[in-house]
Structure formats: C-alpha cells, structure tokens
C-alpha cells in the first residue's frame, strides 16, 4: 500500500479501520465463489489476471500501431480507445456481480455489530471504502500497462500528462457509473419486503451477469467518426454505456466531433444519476435495512406449493434430480457458478452470432459453428456437473421456502 494511503488510513478512527479490514476480507460474495474462499489470495489472483490482460492488450496495440499504415492510424486509435473502456466497464460490472449485496449489512453484520457501540454511519463508510478499494484494485490492475501505452500513443511525450489524466479519469468514471448504477438497483431492491427481495435480488444478479457478457460481445464497433455517426447505429450507441464513455474520453481530449457531443453528455448525466442513486440507496438502506434484516425471517413460508408432475423413473433418481434443481434455484453459490459456465457458452454463441450478423450475407453452417456448438454443449454439461458437485452449504441469506 502506498505510504500516503497508509498515513490516511492511520488517521481514520479505530472502529472505521477495524471494520474496513473486516469488510475488505468479505467484500467478495463468498457464497458465490466458495464458502472457504481465501479472499487475500483470491484478490491477488484476480489482480494478476487483470495485469496480464493489460499487458496483452498494450502489447497487441503497440504491435498493431507499428504495423499500421498512416491512413489507418485514426481508425486503429478509435478502436484501441474504445475497447479498454468497454473491458473496464465489463470488469466493473463483474466486480459488482461477485460482491453483490455485500455493501449492505446482512443479518450477520446486524447481529454482530448492532450490539456493539458502533454507529451505523461508521459501518456504512467502512463498507463503502472496502468496495471502493476492490473496485480501485480492478481499475488500476486492468489499466496498469494500457494506462501508460495508450495515453503515450494518443498524446505523445508532450501531451502525455493530459491524455493520461483523461484516460484514467474516464476509466474511473466508467467503472463508478456501472458500479454505482448496480448499487442503486440493489439498494432500492433491498427496500422490498424480504420475501420478494431475496428472490428479485438473485434474479437481478444473474441478469446483470448475462447482460454484461452479452453487451460486451455484441456491442457495435466503429472505426471512424463517420461510422460513429452512422444513422442506423444511433440507437445502439445511445444505449451502450461504453460508447458514451468513449465519447466522454474524446470530449476530454478535445477530439470528439461536435455532432457527437450528445453521447458525451449522456455519459455525464448517467454518471451523475448513478452517483446520486447509489448515495440515496445507501442512505435509505442504512436507515431501514439493518433493523429490517434482524426483524424479518430469511426462512419465509411459501405462498403456494408447486406439485411436480414430472415422472423421472425410480424414486432415487427423482430425489437426486429434485435435490439438484432445488440447489440450483435456491443457492446463490450454485446459481452463480452455473452462470459462469453459461456465460462462456453465451460468449461463444454471441461471438458467432455477431460475425454472422455483420457478414454481408448469412454464412452457411460451417465446421466453426459445429465446433462452437459442440464446445457450448460440453461446457453446459461440464458446468452442470461441477455445480452439482459443489458441497451444499445453504446460509441464512438463501431464500428457502417451507410449507405453512
């Protein structure tokens, strides 16, 4: 940790420091990964992967730049600027998914901390600081090399400082926008009655996961200012946050065409709304959620009981299948682990779909498609087998229905 950060932390009240360290170790949703997960090791691995990715991206860019004819440099630069932004936003989204709900106090926090002489605002600030630390780790490691290479290529030695500042500011703003927006959604969802919240939250987490992967692989590419402004792409640009933050970056650098200023304005508006929404959600939650979490049961009676009509052969086989299905629908850990495998399947499918859509005429089925389909099937089965092999450890935050 840098010396100034250490000094800053040392000046914080003891309660804040203690809670910050505790929350930092729990900021990743342990239920979604592994119950016994070693968080410092996990964070180290996660940082290592991001640094590796940054090196690969920067090396690829520099090699492409060296081989690029002068007339295509602008197009290369635009693509190169947009891709790290969308990758950073994907990473921020995935960080938000794996730390889902962890910024809000759960039943364990309430039961442990509410009986100690600790003010709720201290808990709030410590949780927010822990989440910010993990997000910062993601931003820094994912851009550690590209954050030097790209500004250097854009601004040269003379404007390196400015282009570097705009690059990092855009990355931070894009990440904060996505993380803040998800935080606001989670916060407002947590105001719902506990029974509804537990179900909606789980669905939202998986939906967010799928959406980020889909958008990343399906987002439109634009190599030139003309392509950016192409009329048939306006709706896609307007809906895609990474395009807006790409425009935001160019606006800060003074390279955005006037006709595209509305895209940058969208990024500013989005950032403001996400920040205000996240702050409001956090405040509301800390005013109401902590008590609600203690008062409301996690085990909620089912409104109606679903009678399975499937006939699966022997009673043993039926028992195993139903046990597996219930684990998948009721355990956050199992759902997210399966979603991980499905997201790879989805990425393969979307990559093929995208290349087929962008082709002048739809391509016939070729060996590539067959291989991709085969891989998808293998991954889906492999994922399912792995998920069902996970030990069951349903904790208090998992919604379990029981009959009245």
């Amino acid at each position, binding site marked *: 940790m840098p010396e100034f950060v250490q000094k800053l932390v040392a000046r914080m009240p003891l309660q804040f420091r203690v809670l910050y360290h505790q929350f930092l170790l*729990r900021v990743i949703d342990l239920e979604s990964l592994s119950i016994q997960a070693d968080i410092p090791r996990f964070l180290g691995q996660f940082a290592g992967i991001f640094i590796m990715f940054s090196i690969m991206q920067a090396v690829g860019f520099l090699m492409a730049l060296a081989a690029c004819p002068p007339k295509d440099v602008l197009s290369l630069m635009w693509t190169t600027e947009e891709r790290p932004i969308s990758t950073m936003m994907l990473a921020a989204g995935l960080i938000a998914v794996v730390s889902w709900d962890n910024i809000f106090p759960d039943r364990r926090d309430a039961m442990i901390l*509410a009986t*100690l*002489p600790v003010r709720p605002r201290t808990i709030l600030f410590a949780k927010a600081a822990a989440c910010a630390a993990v997000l910062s780790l993601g931003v820094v490691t994912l851009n550690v090399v590209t954050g030097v290479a790209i500004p250097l290529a854009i601004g040269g030695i003379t404007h390196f400082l400015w282009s570097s500042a705009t690059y990092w500011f855009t990355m931070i703003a894009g990440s904060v926008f996505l993380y803040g927006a998800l935080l606001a959604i989670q916060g407002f969802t947590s105001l719902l009655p506990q029974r509804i919240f537990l179900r909606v939250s789980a669905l939202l987490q998986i939906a967010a996961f799928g959406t980020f992967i889909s958008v990343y692989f399906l987002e439109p590419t634009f190599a030139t200012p003309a392509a950016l402004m192409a009329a048939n792409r306006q709706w896609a640009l307007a809906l895609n946050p990474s395009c807006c933050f790409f425009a935001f970056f160019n606006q800060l650098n003074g390279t955005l065409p006037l006709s595209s200023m509305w895209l940058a304005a969208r990024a500013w508006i989005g950032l403001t709304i996400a920040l205000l929404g996240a702050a409001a959600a956090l405040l509301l939650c800390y005013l109401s959620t902590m*008590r609600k979490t*203690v008062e409301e049961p996690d085990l909620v009676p089912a409104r109606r009981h679903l009678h399975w009509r499937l006939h699966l052969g022997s009673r043993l086989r039926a028992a195993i299948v139903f046990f597996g299905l219930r684990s998948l629908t009721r355990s956050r850990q199992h759902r997210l682990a399966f979603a991980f495998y499905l997201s790879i399947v989805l990425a393969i499918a979307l990559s093929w779909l995208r290349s087929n859509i962008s082709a002048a005429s739809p391509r016939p089925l070729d060996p590539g498609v067959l291989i991709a389909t085969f891989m998808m099937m293998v991954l889906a089965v492999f994922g399912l087998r792995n998920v069902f092999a996970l030990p069951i450890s349903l904790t208090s935050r998992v919604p379990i229905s029981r009959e009245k």
Partner: protein
Amino acid sequence: MLELQRVSKHFAGIPAVDNVSFFARPGEITGYLGPNGSGKTTTMKMITGLIERTSGEILLGGKPIEDDRIAYKRRMGYVPEEPYLYNHLSGAEYLTMVAQLRGLPARESAEQIDGLLHLLSLHDDRHASISGYSKGMRQKILIAAALLHNPDLVLLEPFSGLDVASALVLRSLILELAHRGKVLLFSSHELDTVERVSTRVVILHRGKVVADDSIERLRSLMELPNLESIFSQLAVEQDTESMARQIADLIHA
C-alpha cells in the same frame, strides 16, 4: 437495574410481545422463560436495541436506553442464541476485533482475551478459523465476546452444544457475576439450570407475562414442587403425554 415498562412489539399488527413489564436487579439472576414463540427472543432483541419496540420503555439505571445508545451498548453484553460470528476470522482475531470496536486498551484486552481463551479451553484452537469450530466452541466465543468489556448488564439466551464441564463452568460464572453486582437476564429452556441459578423468574406465554416472582414464592403460591411443574401449568397448553403417543402412532413405532 434493568426495567421494562409496558413493552410491546407487533409484527404486521400481530403482537409478539404484549405489554411486558418486569425488572432485573443488580446482584440477581432473573430467569426469563417461555415456550418457543412466546416472545423471549423478541424481548431480548428489543433490550439489546437490535429491533425497535412498538410501545413501552426500557430503562437501565433509570435512564431510557435511547438517550445514549452507544453508552448503553458499552454497558451491555449479549450472548445470542444463534451463533452469528465472522467465520473467516480465528477465535482470537474475532475477540480482538470486538475489543477494538469496543475501544478497549490493546495490551489489557490482549491479556484478557488470552486468559479467557485459556479458561474456556479454546487456547489451543485460538488461531483456527471459526468456520471449523463446533457449536459449543462458537458459544464460548460469544460468551467471551459478551464479557470482555466487563458489562453491567448481561443478557444470556439459551445455549446448547456446551459439554458438561463447560456448562457447569458457565452456571458458576453466572452466579459469580451476579455475586459481583451485575444485572443478569437469563433466558433458557433448561428449567433445571434456571431453577438452580435464578433468584426470580419471569414466565412469558403468548407474548404476555404470566408469572413474575421468586421461585420459592411461586412454588408455595401454586403448591407445586418445582419450576418444571409451574412452567407446565402456566405455559404449556398441550397434553404432552398424549402428543407423544400421537407421534409414536404416526410413525408406526
């Protein structure tokens, strides 16, 4: 002295605790009894400040606990029934965290933690992760965490999973703390233990207080031999023997 004055708690309009009033004096052990769902845990959570009450007042030393919640929590130790702990920490780390959050001096609290872990037979496992602890070991950590700051008010909920020796130590500890002038409110299902240690008992049934007196007085008033009989008469509605027969019949035993 801890005093509850006409305390009620309603969940969705349904009273879980209804006009409960009693007091617990320093140097005494007040047993708080009731069947499952009678409102014991809800009362305890209201006293700890975990949940808001619908009406009534809770006073410690004559002052409403809302006057200064932080100061109140500094004087209170709570051993909950559910062993909520941070599983990623070891026993020693958890107690150190509690000591730090309570603002206890580092050196002094380190010695206290070490001593408590020794006395509660947890010293050998002090660096092991709590996730690997047995239920009894978790209960011991909760007891140590609740007593670390020498509270004036100790709230104890039913504990299970303790071995015989630890349960005996705990029983003696409760008596010793009362002897040293602490206010103890002891909620338990073990009527035998409550009868042995409590000075007074408060029996709750369907959210209402149905008895609040010393065990001796209740025995003589109701002409019953022990606390179990008193409890059965006041708070148990079912014919237990008939129920047992029905269960055995149902499983074709």
